[in-house]
């Protein structure tokens, strides 16, 4: 199928702070992987190939044609690799929600390194750590000094560390979208301007959503999905369930909706949104059906976790991208 | 008992010469311009208000009208032409009639014909009694030189038929005393009535007893100097008023208390104290009369624009008394016994009604009420209870 004479595309895939689902989504191309391999050489993919970092470091700048970087930047290793791959790649794609917007790991911005370490290494009920050992970047053993990556205070999206050429959103991105983008690059189609979101629609999810929508968008009470008898047909918002669909790019194939779950927003906001969750917060606030302050407060109270609701995949890219630590009053 | 407003009170005041009573809308300019009012006693405004509302009790217990000397500045300043100065004048007339327990004053003020009748009646009485008790000597015309003394003047006490000079003076003196007792009786009882209304009837008023004595000097001082009057801007009027007051008082004292020394047969040289005092009094009274006549006729001075009949009555009587008094002097010095006798008779016919009517019942009485008002005002001030007046201030 592919022309053997043509130089093959050199491709890298890297896994930062993430669940690995993105790498799995690449594997989800199934038999089409052969087509990929026919036109591309995978020069770096830690999950599948035993290629060391130093091999990458040895590559000439711009040696890699296309890097799919998934996962957020959580520690110094992620950061190092992000910079390295940026240097070595012609096209760097933030692949998946974590690289794109910070993703689920980004919710850790609601806490900080100290709190996390305390919780994980000291406080959890299942932890046995009588010496109170927490990770260090440098540790001396008999064989010499060990170096571990430094855990950062904040989780960052890829473009908060290096310049990103394209974003391919999703948690994980829908495989079809990956192939479309990949083939476009292979076929040297005219690429969109740098910084574009690819593999997702301009319009948001409602446009392709099959549920019945009317203009009856008023909310007297918010429900969690399990609190309602979903008829499988009516727009979630009209049933009082917060669905991020209106503020989330389409392209995912409304998989969650098909599974009778409201959209959580993994595809990120449409273009021109300075803050990924604010628009939806604004929309949801507006359609609360009450003019009484106390009643409004009651209705709002049902949204137990506004940050997790409106910024589930995007907190590091929010204007207020992390929880503030309030200095204790001096007295 | 809470006072009731009385819409008919204005009709009563009309009789005392009230013209404008409702134009005032209480801007307070009058009180602001008044050189005599004090921070805690705001006239003429309060008086106007009480009059407008017909609060008689409060009016009668207030001495404010007496504290005003009618310089007219309030009237000049009034933006509504409400003429507060004149209202104070009206209130003085009203108060005079209120203090008079006999009701005669009210009668005279409100019904002119009664006053006139009383004057004529008294004048006739004086003439008749004089002619009966001191009939003219038949020699007045036939042997006028019999009544001439060595200085060439008329021996005034020897003009009656068959009555010795000492008897003549004594009879006149009896008449004087009778008049003085009558007048003083009325006046003193009226002042006591005033004292009762202003001081005694106010149950809330409390002041130390010694204040009666400590404040007494103010009565004397004000009576003698009319010091408050001098605070008004127009000093001429004060001087005129002081002249007439002293002249009048001197004359009155001479006639009543020192008649024997005053009315003597001998004509003293012009520099004799008795003549000098007489000249001074005459000058004072004439100065005032001329000033007042001109003022009341030409109406250039605000305070003389509106003349109540009682105002005219007083100065007319005074005028004739003064003129006849002067004539007596001239006729005496010129040695005309008949003219002296009859002028003397006419003089008394003016003088007596003037004193009997005006002193206790009419205009003249202010000579007593004013200093007493100052005295009572000081007594009230000595008390702590100035509530109603203090509360008035916010409206200003």
């Amino acid at each position, binding site marked *: 199928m592919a022309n053997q004479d043509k130089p093959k595309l050199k491709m890298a895939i890297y896994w930062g702070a993430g669940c690995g689902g993105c790498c799995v989504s690449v594997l989800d191309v199934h038999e089409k992987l052969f087509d990929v391999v026919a036109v591309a050489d995978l020069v770096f993919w830690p999950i599948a190939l035993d290629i060391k970092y130093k091999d990458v470091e040895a590559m000439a700048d711009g040696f890699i044609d296309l890097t799919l970087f998934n996962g957020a930047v959580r520690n110094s290793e992620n950061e190092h690799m992000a910079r390295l791959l940026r240097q070595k790649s012609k096209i760097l794609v933030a692949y998946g929600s974590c690289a794109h917007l910070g993703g689920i790991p980004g919710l850790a911005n609601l806490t900080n390194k100290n709190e996390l370490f305390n919780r994980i290494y000291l406080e959890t009920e299942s932890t046995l750590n009588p010496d109170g050992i927490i990770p260090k970047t440098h540790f001396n053993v008999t064989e010499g000094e060990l170096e571990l990556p430094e855990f950062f205070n*904040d989780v960052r999206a890829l473009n908060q560390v290096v310049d990103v050429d394209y974003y391919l959103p999703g948690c994980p991105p829908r495989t079809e979208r990956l192939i479309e983008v990949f083939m476009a690059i292979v076929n040297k189609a005219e690429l969109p301007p740098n910084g574009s979101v690819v593999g997702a629609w301009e319009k948001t999810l409602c446009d392709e959503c099959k549920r019945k929508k009317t203009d009856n968008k008023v909310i007297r009470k918010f429900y969690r999905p399990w609190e309602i008898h979903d008829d499988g047909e009516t727009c979630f918002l009209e049933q009082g369930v917060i669905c991020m669909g209106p503020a989330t790019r389409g392209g995912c194939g409304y998989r969650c909706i098909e599974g009778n779950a409201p959209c959580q927003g993994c595809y990120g906001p449409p273009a021109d949104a*300075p803050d990924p969750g604010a628009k939806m917060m604004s929309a*949801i606030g507006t359609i609360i059906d009450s003019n009484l302050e106390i009643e409004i407060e009651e209705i709002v109270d049902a949204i137990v976790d506004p940050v997790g609701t409106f910024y589930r995949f995007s907190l590091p890219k929010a204007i207020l991208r992390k929880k503030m630590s309030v200095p204790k009053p001096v007295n | 008992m809470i006072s009731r407003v009385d819409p008919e009170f204005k009709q009563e005041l009309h009789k005392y010469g009230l013209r404008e009573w409702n134009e005032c809308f209480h801007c307070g300019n009058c009180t602001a311009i008044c050189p005599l009012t004090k921070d805690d006693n705001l006239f003429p405004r309060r008086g106007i208000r009480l009059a407008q509302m017909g609060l008689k009790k409060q009016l009668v217990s207030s001495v404010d009208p007496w504290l005003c000397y009618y310089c007219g500045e309030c009237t000049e300043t009034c933006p509504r032409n409400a003429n507060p100065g004149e209202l104070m004048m009206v209130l003085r007339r009203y108060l005079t009639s209120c203090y008079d327990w006999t009701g005669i004053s009210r009668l005279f003020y409100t019904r002119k014909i009664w006053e006139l009748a009383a004057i004529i009646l008294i004048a006739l009485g004086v003439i008749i009694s004089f002619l009966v008790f001191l009939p003219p000597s038949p020699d007045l015309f036939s042997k006028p030189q019999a009544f001439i003394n060595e200085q060439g003047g008329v021996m005034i006490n020897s003009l009656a038929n068959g009555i010795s000079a000492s008897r003549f003076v004594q009879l006149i003196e009896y008449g004087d005393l009778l008049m003085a007792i009558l007048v003083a009786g009325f006046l003193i009882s009226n002042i006591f009535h005033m004292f009762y209304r202003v001081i005694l009837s106010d149950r809330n008023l409390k002041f130390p007893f010694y204040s009666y004595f400590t404040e007494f000097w103010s009565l004397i001082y004000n009576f003698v100097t009319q010091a408050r009057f001098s605070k008004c801007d127009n000093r001429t009027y004060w001087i005129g008023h002081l002249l007439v007051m002293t002249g009048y008082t001197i004359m009155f004292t001479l006639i009543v208390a020192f008649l024997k020394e005053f009315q003597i047969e001998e004509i003293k040289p012009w520099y004799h104290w008795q003549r000098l005092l007489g000249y001074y009094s005459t000058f004072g009274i004439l100065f005032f009369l001329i000033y007042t006549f001109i003022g009341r006729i030409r109406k250039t001075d605000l305070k003389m624009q509106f003349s109540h009949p009682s105002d005219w009555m007083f100065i007319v009587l005074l005028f004739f008394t003064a003129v006849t008094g002067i004539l007596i002097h001239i006729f005496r010095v010129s040695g005309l016994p008949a003219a002296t006798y009859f002028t003397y008779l006419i003089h008394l016919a003016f003088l007596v009604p003037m004193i009997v009517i005006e002193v206790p019942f009419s205009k003249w009485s202010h000579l007593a009420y004013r200093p007493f008002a100052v005295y009572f005002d000081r007594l009230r001030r000595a008390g702590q209870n100035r509530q109603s007046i203090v509360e008035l201030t916010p409206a200003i």
Partner: protein
Amino acid sequence: MEFEPKIVAFLCNWCSYTGADLAGTSRMKYSPSLRIIRVMCSGRICPTFIFKAFQEGADGVLVCGCHPGDCHYNEGNYKCLRRFKLIEKYIRQMGIEPDRIRLAWISASEGKLFAELANEMTQTIKNLGPSTIKAQLEQMV
């Protein structure tokens, strides 16, 4: 020097902005902490504006609209109120003192009230101290 807060204030054109103008024409003195941004209606005020103000270093954000029932656009102010309640909750979760944002109704005739509000809010912010949000956001890693 005493800490002088900077408060970004979003005022609706019809009531609150006019009320602020009235405070001006009446020469009412108030704290110079406010930086007023005019919008046509408090219903236009989007959470983004508030977040942006904090990101840029604002010590507080004031949102003013017409009194309930008096909105020039019937009920834009109610929509603002509803959003504001949600924003308040979000702000709290983000570790920002809720006192740093305030919603108030100011009518065109309430110049005095506006001046008082400005002073009151300034005092509240002074008590809270300067906002560290901008500094914290700039501190990546």
